[in-house]
């Protein structure tokens, strides 16, 4: 992950967007710092796409303010568009043009940028450069979208649900591509409902629920603040008295889960790690697992559920 900087390249203050009676974004605020990967996280309908499309100058806000690279989204949209790259949700481009032709077209719409071949190479698209967009798999189509967004050498790259609908292999490849971008110093703003994606890619994240920002912090900070206790899970064997006793001495709370295994809860991760070593001595060969809290726990606590594969809260 990229190192942090305090220079804000995106500033959002009390952003609001209504569609008639429906309020899609209701007072969202956050900042994105230079050279970081920032994730807007939330289930479907949380206001992620509306927020990011306002920042991409594709939508107009009905309240609050938003600026990108110091330019107000309502006053200087063309200046902003010249300096950002965008991969919209459900990205699509000219079906009957090849990958190279699509990337070249995008390059020609910007005043500055990198070479078409360089963009193709950066996304490992050389072998598919002369393939028509419609003939590509979903993963390569998404990769073409990122190449088109990169060819203008943007200072900020917006990726709206970059891996939704992709198979696990294509998703992992896309993550690798995004990680490579951050190595080149590009600031990335992505929206996602995949918690694993946030943990893998993001430096910081804003959690949106029902159009409101419920938390903004580093991923580690969010987990520490909202993720809850670290769990130490000890396999039950029938002769658990000694190990249960040892666990109760160090854990804040001990209970048996649905499988009958012993679970010890620790507020402090270092205490859990110390207990992990000690119980290995007492428990013998039984399996002991240290299960740390993650973004899923954060989500569970703040949104009241976790998003499924389609982004619906379950």
């Amino acid at each position: 992950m990229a190192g942090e900087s305090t220079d804000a390249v995106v500033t959002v203050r009390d952003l609001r967007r209504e569609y008639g009676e429906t309020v899609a974004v209701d007072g969202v605020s956050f900042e994105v710092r230079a050279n970081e990967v920032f994730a807007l996280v939330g289930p479907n309908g949380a206001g992620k796409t509306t927020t990011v499309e306002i920042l991409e100058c594709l939508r107009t806000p009905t309240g609050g303010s938003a600026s990108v690279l110091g330019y107000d989204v309502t006053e200087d949209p063309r200046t902003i568009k010249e300096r950002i790259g965008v991969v919209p949700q459900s990205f699509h481009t000219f079906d009957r043009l090849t990958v190279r032709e699509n990337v070249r077209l995008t390059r020609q719409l910007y005043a500055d940028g990198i070479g078409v071949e360089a963009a193709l190479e950066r996304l490992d698209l050389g072998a598919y450069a002369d393939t028509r967009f419609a003939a590509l798999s979903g993963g390569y189509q998404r990769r073409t979208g990122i190449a088109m967004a990169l060819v203008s050498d943007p200072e900020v790259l917006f990726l709206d649900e970059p891996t939704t609908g992709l198979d696990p292999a294509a998703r992992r490849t896309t993550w690798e591509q995004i990680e490579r971008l951050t190595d080149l110093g590009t600031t990335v703003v992505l929206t996602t409902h995949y918690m694993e994606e946030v943990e893998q890619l993001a430096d910081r994240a804003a959690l949106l629920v029902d159009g409101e920002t419920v938390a903004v912090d580093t991923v580690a900070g969010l987990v520490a603040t909202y993720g809850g206790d670290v769990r130490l899970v000890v396999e039950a064997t029938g002769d658990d008295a000694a190990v249960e006793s040892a666990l109760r001495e160090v854990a804040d709370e001990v209970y048996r889960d649905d499988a009958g295994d012993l679970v010890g809860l620790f507020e402090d991760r270092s205490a859990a790690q110390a207990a992990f070593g000690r119980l290995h001595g007492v428990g013998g060969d039984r399996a002991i697992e240290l299960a740390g809290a993650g973004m899923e726990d954060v989500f569970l606590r703040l949104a009241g559920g976790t998003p499924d594969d389609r982004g619906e809260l379950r």
Partner: protein
Amino acid sequence: MTRVRPLLVALSRDWLRNREAVFFAFLFPVILLLIFSAVFGGGTSEFTVYVQNNDVGADDDPTDLSATFVEALNGTGALSVRPLDSDRNVTAWSRGGGPSGSVRVLVVPDGFAEDVRAGSARARRSVILDTLNRTGTANRTAIQGAFDAADDANATASANATGAATVTFMAASDDEAAPAIRGVVESVVARFNERAVGIGEPPARVETTDLGDRTLEGADYYLPALIAAVVMINGLITLPTVVAQFGADGTLKRLVATPLRKRDWILANVVQQTGLALVITGVMVVVARLAFGVTVVPGPLSLALVALGAVAFTGLGMALGSLVENAEAATSLGMAVALPTMFVSGVFWELDLMPGFLQTVATVTPIYHFHRGLRQLMVLETTEGTALPFAVLGIGSVLSLALAVRVTKWEDF
């Protein structure tokens, strides 16, 4: 403007690789041109008439007079005369076992020649006696007596003569061409009668003169009409479908996310469609020349009118494509507007064939003025009457582009 060129190239490439669009822009109008020109403009039509000549001599050959009559029928140019055996039962033959299509038969009866001669003598005598009555000639009684004596002699010699020679024209009651064919036959009979009574030059006659220097063939009529039609179809059906598809699948959103302006997007589409219209015009002119020998060469004014028509319909097409949310709806909407307009505008047939109120409706459609103007410029090679088409399409272009600018979304999809 620097962004229009690459977008224009991309739109053109994408379009040329779209088989449906290419079919409707090039092959469809060429097919229509070939069909309409061949069916409705393939030169003078001839109606087939079967003639059963029962007036034969001892050697079974037709008598001279009946043969002359049949030759006169054949010489009109309107009828294609085919012989029918004398022993054939016409009614049975026409109902079964006859040729396909409408059957028309003209029966020349046995004794035709004798009846003609007898009728001719009566007619001549009647003319002479009528003339004597009018002039009050002194020898009238003597001449009358001589005619009566001759009648007696003729009655003995022409025992078989039945009076007026009568040919029978037979056709089905639902044969729409029958009245016209009967008219041709009657004109031949009239001419035949004049000759039979010795009238070399009839007192009154009809003369035919060409209205212009050249005759309009079917392809001449349909070429400008189909150019106008295909420009309209491209603008109102193909373009809205493509634009709506770009909007629905996210291609347009991706473009909007770049520094491209709305005006660049509209301008690129207008230039692409205008160029396409001019290319289609060239293709159709070449096809018309190769297939039908049409020698039309579109001049600058013709091309200007084609370009103006393309701009007008492109503006409308972009507006339609922006108003609907999917390609299927755009196609349906475009067809709902374009097809009725095309059929009432006189593209495929002359307005004179339509009811009065439809003729009025036609004159308020842009395509009516479009193809009328093109016909004046391309075929009749005159600028007369083209001010109105230029004005209609010019104003239409301004209004449709204004509408396209207004309804094309460039934010808040």
